[in-house]
C-alpha cells in the first residue's frame, strides 16, 4: 500500500514537473513581448531625446517603434553566400526535408500513442486493452529512436543555414530571437517528457497511475504541437511577413511576427498532414513486418497494427484537403499573385502532380479496405459492387487531375483549336475539382462503412429501413456534390468559393451521420464469422507501402511548392535572394530531388526500424506475452 502511495506521489510529481517544463519557456519568455510598443526600446529612446523612429507594419498596418535593423541587402559572394562547389539551395533543401520528415514522424506518433493508449484504458475487454497498450508501446519505441535522429538532423540544418546562408539566418534569428530560445527550451521539455513517458510505461501501467501516464502523453503532445507552431511561425513569416516595416525592421511586437497571415492555416494543415504521414509510415512498417513474418501470430499482429495505423492515418487524411483549401484561400487573400503562381501559373503543374498523389492516397486506402474484407467471412456480398466504387473513385480522380494548362506540342495545340479544351478544360477549374475530391472522399467513407459491416448482419427491427435510408443518403450526397460542382460554373467566383462549404458539409455528413447510424445498426449484430487477422492478401500490404510512399512524396512536393512560391525572395517582398540560385527549378529537377529525399528517408527509417527490432529481441519472453497473436479481434472494435 505504502509502495503504491509512493508511486502515486512520484507519478503526480512527474506530471507536475512536465507541466512545469511546459510552462517554463513561456515564463522565461514573458519579458520578451514587453520589448514591443511601450517598453524598453521606447523608453530608452525617449531618454536619449526625441529620436524615436517609427515604422508601419507591412501586414497589420499598425505603427511601432523600430527596434531592429533593416533586412540585409545581400550580394552574391562569400560574405553573404559562402558555398562549396555545389548548389547551396539543394543542400538546405535536403537537410530541411529530412528534418521535417523525422520531425513530423516524432510529433505524429505520440499523438497516435495517446489515442491508442486511451482506447486501451477505456476498453472493457482486458485482452484487447492489453493489445492496445502493447501497440502504443511499440509505437513510442519506434518514435524514440527517430527522436534522436530528428535532433541530429535539426542540428545539421542549423549548421547548414549558418554556414551557407549566414546573412539570411542572421536576419531571421534577429527577429525571432526570443522565439528561437523558447523553441530550444521546449525541445528540452519535450525530451524530458518523452523519456519519462517511455521509461515510466511499466511502472504506471494500472489503475490511477495509468491515468497519470495517459495525462503525460497529453502534456507531451501539447509540447510537441507548440514546438511545431513555433517552427511554423518562421516559414509563415518568410511567406507572409508581419511585424516589420517595409525595410524589414522589427517593430517590437513579437506576436505580430508570429501571428502572420498564413500561420494558423499552416498550423492546422501541418497537424493533419503529420498525423496522416505518421499513420502511413507506421502502416508501412507493419506491412514490411507482415511480409517478412514467419509465423501466423506475427502476421496477425502486424496485419492488425497496419490496419490501426492506416485507419488513424486516413482519419486525418479525410479532412486534410479541406485544411489545404483553407490555406490556399488565405494565400489568395494575402497575395493574389502568390495564389495564381501556385495554382494557375508557374507552379500549377506541380499542383497537378499533388492532385495525382492525393488521388493515389485515396485509391490505396480504398483498395486496402476492399482487400481487408477478404479476411472476414460474410463480406463476399459486397465484392460484386466494388467495381461501381472503382468507377466512382476513378471518375472523381480523373476530374481532379485534369490540368487547366495542358502540356502539348504546338501541333497538338493547333489541332485542339486553342489553349482551352472545350470538353476537358471544364474539369481543369476549381468547381469541378471540388466535386471530384468530394466524390472520392465520400466513396472512401462508403468503403469504410462496408468494411465495418463486412462480417455482420444487423439485427435491429428497423434494419431494412436503416439500409434504405443509408443508400438514399449516399445517393443524395453524390447528387448534391455533383450538382454543386456544375452549379459553380453559373455563379460569381466569390459565391463559387463559398459552395465548397455545402460540398464539404455533405461529405462530412456522410462521414459522421452514416458512421453513427451504422454503429447503432450494428450494435448486437449477428456475426457471420470472426475477422481472421493475418489472412489478408499481400497486395493489401503493398497498398499500405504505396500509401506511405505517396504520403512522403507528397509531403516533399508540397514543401517544395510552399517554399518556391516566394520566387526570388528569402522573406517575401522584404529580403531578396541574391544568390545565383534565386530561380525556380524545372519540374523535372524538382521531381528528381523530391524522389531522392523520399528514397533517403525510407532507407534511413529502415535503419531506425532495424534499430527498434534489435531492442525488441532483448525483450524477455514474459513481456511478449501481451503481444496480440491469433486472438480473434472482436469486430465491435472497428
Amino acid at each position, binding site marked *: 500500500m505504502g509502495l503504491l502511495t509512493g508511486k502515486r506521489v512520484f507519478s503526480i510529481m512527474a506530471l507536475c514537473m512536465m507541466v512545469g517544463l511546459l510552462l517554463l519557456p513561456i515564463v522565461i519568455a514573458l519579458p520578451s513581448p514587453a520589448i514591443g510598443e511601450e517598453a524598453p526600446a521606447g523608453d530608452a529612446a525617449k531618454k536619449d531625446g526625441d529620436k524615436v523612429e517609427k515604422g508601419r507594419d507591412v501586414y497589420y498596418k499598425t505603427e511601432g517603434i523600430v527596434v531592429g535593423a533593416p533586412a540585409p541587402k545581400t550580394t552574391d559572394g562569400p560574405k553573404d553566400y559562402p558555398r562549396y562547389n555545389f548548389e547551396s539551395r539543394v543542400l538546405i533543401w535536403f537537410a530541411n526535408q529530412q528534418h521535417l520528415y523525422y520531425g513530423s514522424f516524432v510529433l505524429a506518433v505520440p499523438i497516435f500513442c495517446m489515442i491508442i493508449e486511451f482506447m486501451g484504458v477505456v476498453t472493457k475487454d482486458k485482452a484487447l486493452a492489453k493489445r492496445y497498450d502493447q501497440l502504443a508501446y511499440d509505437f513510442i519505441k519506434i518514435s524514440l529512436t527517430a527522436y534522436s535522429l530528428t535532433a541530429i538532423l535539426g542540428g545539421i540544418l542549423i549548421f547548414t543555414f549558418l554556414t551557407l546562408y549566414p546573412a539570411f539566418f542572421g536576419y531571421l534569428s534577429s527577429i525571432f530571437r526570443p522565439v528561437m530560445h523558447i523553441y530550444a527550451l521546449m525541445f528540452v521539455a519535450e525530451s524530458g517528457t518523452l523519456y519519462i513517458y517511455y521509461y515510466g510505461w511499466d511502472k504506471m501501467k494500472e489503475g490511477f497511475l495509468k491515468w497519470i501516464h495517459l495525462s503525460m502523453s497529453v502534456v507531451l503532445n501539447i509540447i510537441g504541437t507548440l514546438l511545431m507552431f513555433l517552427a511554423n511561425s518562421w516559414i509563415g513569416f518568410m511567406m507572409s511577413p508581419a511585424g516589420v516595416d517595409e525595410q524589414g525592421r522589427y517593430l517590437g511586437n513579437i506576436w505580430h511576427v508570429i501571428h502572420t497571415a498564413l500561420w494558423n492555416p499552416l498550423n492546422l494543415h501541418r497537424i493533419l498532414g503529420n498525423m496522416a504521414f505518421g499513420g502511413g509510415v507506421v502502416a508501412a512498417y507493419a506491412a514490411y513486418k507482415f511480409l517478412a513474418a514467419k509465423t501466423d501470430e506475427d502476421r496477425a499482429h502486424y496485419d492488425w497494427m497496419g490496419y490501426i495505423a492506416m485507419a488513424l492515418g486516413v482519419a486525418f487524411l479525410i479532412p486534410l484537403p479541406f485544411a489545404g483549401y483553407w490555406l490556399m484561400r488565405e494565400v489568395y487573400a494575402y497575395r493574389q499573385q502568390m495564389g495564381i*503562381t501556385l495554382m494557375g501559373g508557374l507552379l500549377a503543374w506541380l499542383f497537378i502532380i499533388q492532385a495525382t498523389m492525393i488521388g493515389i492516397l485515396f485509391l490505396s486506402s480504398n483498395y486496402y479496405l476492399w482487400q481487408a474484407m477478404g479476411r472476414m467471412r460474410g463480406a463476399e456480398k459486397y465484392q460484386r459492387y466494388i467495381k461501381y466504387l472503382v468507377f466512382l473513385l476513378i*471518375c472523381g480522380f480523373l476530374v481532379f487531375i485534369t490540368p487547366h494548362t*495542358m502540356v502539348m506540342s504546338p501541333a*497538338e495545340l493547333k489541332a485542339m483549336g486553342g489553349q482551352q*479544351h472545350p470538353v476537358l478544360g*471544364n*474539369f481543369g477549374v476549381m468547381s469541378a475539382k471540388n466535386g471530384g475530391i468530394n466524390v472520392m472522399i465520400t466513396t472512401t467513407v462508403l468503403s469504410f462503412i462496408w468494411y465495418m459491416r463486412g462480417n455482420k448482419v444487423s439485427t435491429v427491427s428497423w434494419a431494412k429501413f436503416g439500409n434504405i435510408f443509408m443508400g438514399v443518403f449516399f445517393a443524395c450526397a453524390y447528387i448534391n456534390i455533383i450538382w454543386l460542382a*456544375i452549379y459553380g460554373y453559373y455563379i460569381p*467566383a466569390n459565391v463559387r468559393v463559398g459552395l465548397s462549404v455545402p460540398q464539404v458539409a455533405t461529405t462530412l455528413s456522410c462521414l459522421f451521420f452514416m458512421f453513427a447510424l451504422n454503429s447503432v445498426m450494428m450494435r448486437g449484430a449477428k456475426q457471420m464469422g470472426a475477422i481472421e487477422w493475418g489472412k489478408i492478401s499481400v497486395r493489401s500490404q503493398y497498398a499500405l507501402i504505396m500509401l506511405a510512399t505517396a504520403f512522403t512524396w507528397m509531403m516533399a512536393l508540397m514543401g517544395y511548392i510552399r517554399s518556391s512560391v516566394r520566387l526570388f525572395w528569402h522573406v517575401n517582398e522584404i529580403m531578396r535572394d541574391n544568390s545565383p540560385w534565386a530561380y*525556380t527549378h524545372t519540374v523535372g529537377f524538382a521531381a528528381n530531388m523530391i524522389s531522392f529525399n523520399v528514397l533517403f528517408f525510407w532507407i534511413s527509417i529502415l535503419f531506425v526500424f532495424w534499430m527498434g527490432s534489435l531492442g525488441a529481441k532483448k525483450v524477455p519472453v514474459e513481456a511478449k506475452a501481451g503481444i496480440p497473436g491469433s486472438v480473434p479481434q472482436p469486430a465491435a472494435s472497428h
Partner: protein
Amino acid sequence: MKALMSLGALVGVIGILLLGGMIFNVVPSTTVRLVEGYMPMQMLFELTCFVAGFAGLSYMMNAMGMPFPRFWQGIGFWAFILLYLKYRVYPPIPFSVRAMYGTVSLVAVFMWVSASEEDWKKFKQPIMNVLDAQGGMNKLLRYAYLVLLPILIGGFSYNAMVPKSEEPIELRTVHPAPPASTKVHGKTYTLQTSQNPYRVNQEGKYDQDYTNANIVEQGMGRLMKPNANPWDDKNKGYLKYVREGGEIFFQNCHFCHGDNLNGRGLHAFAFNPIPANFTDPGTIAQLQETFIFWRVSKGGIGLPNEGFPWASVMPPWEQHLTVDEIWKVILFEYWHTGYYPRTWD
C-alpha cells in the same frame, strides 16, 4: 433485375458498335454529338452508361452460360477507354492528358480485377497458363512473347531516343501571376484593390450585384436579359458603358478574339495558340477585372518572366486606348460572355 441488366447489355452493345463505327468511319463521328455547354457532363454520363452497359453484358453472357473471361474483360475495358478518348472526344485530347487518363484507367482495371482473391485468380489464370506452358498452344505463345516483348520494348526505346524534328512540348503558363500593381498612362493601379470605374448602378455607385444582374444569360444562346439591351439609346450608366465597350471591342479586338468572343476572329488562325476564348470558363471567368486590365494594357510584350514561352502577340493596348476605354472593353467582355469577374469579398 434481369430486365435492368438486359437494358444495360443493350446499351453496352450499342455503345461498342457506335464507337467501332466511328473508329472505322462507318458511322459519322457526329452521330451522337457532344453538345456545347454540356460536353463535360455528357462525357461522364456516356462513360457511366458504358460501365452499366458492360456490367449488363457480362451478366447476360453469364446467364446464357457463355461467361466472358475476366482477363479479357479487363483488357477489353481498358482498350475501350483508350479508344474512347482517342476517337470519341473532339477536339483531340493532347497525348500528355490521354497518357494520364490511360494510366489511371489501367490502375482502375487492376483495382477492379484484383479487388477479391477469387477475381484476381480468374484474371491472372491465362497469364499463369502461358508462363507454365503446359499445353502446345501456351508453349508457342510463351516463345512468341519471349521474342516479341524485347522487340516491342526495343522499339519503344528507339522511338523515344531517336532525334525528331517535331517542335518541342511546351509547358505554357497561360495565366502568369500578375504584379502587385501596374502603371498605365502615368497612374498606378493596385491589382488587389482597384475596381472598374464603370461597373456602376443607376446612381453611379460601384455595384457588382447590379451589373451582374444585367449580363447576358449563360448557357446556350447567351440571351440578353429583358430590359438590359445595351443598344437601347435610352440606357444610361452600366449598359451605356457596355455599349461603348462593345464599340471599342469591335473596332479593335474582334479581329482576333472573334465576334462571339470565342477566340476565333478573322486573324485568329494565323496564330498558334489562337487568341484567348473568353467564353471558356477557364479564362476571364477565373480572373479579377484588374488582371484583365493589366494583361490588356501591357499585352504579350508585358508578360512577366514566368509567362514562358510568352506565346502572345497581343499588342500593349495602353499605347492605343485610354484607360477608360480599356475598362469599358473589359466591362463588355464580361457582359457578353455572361461571366462574373472574380472578387474576394
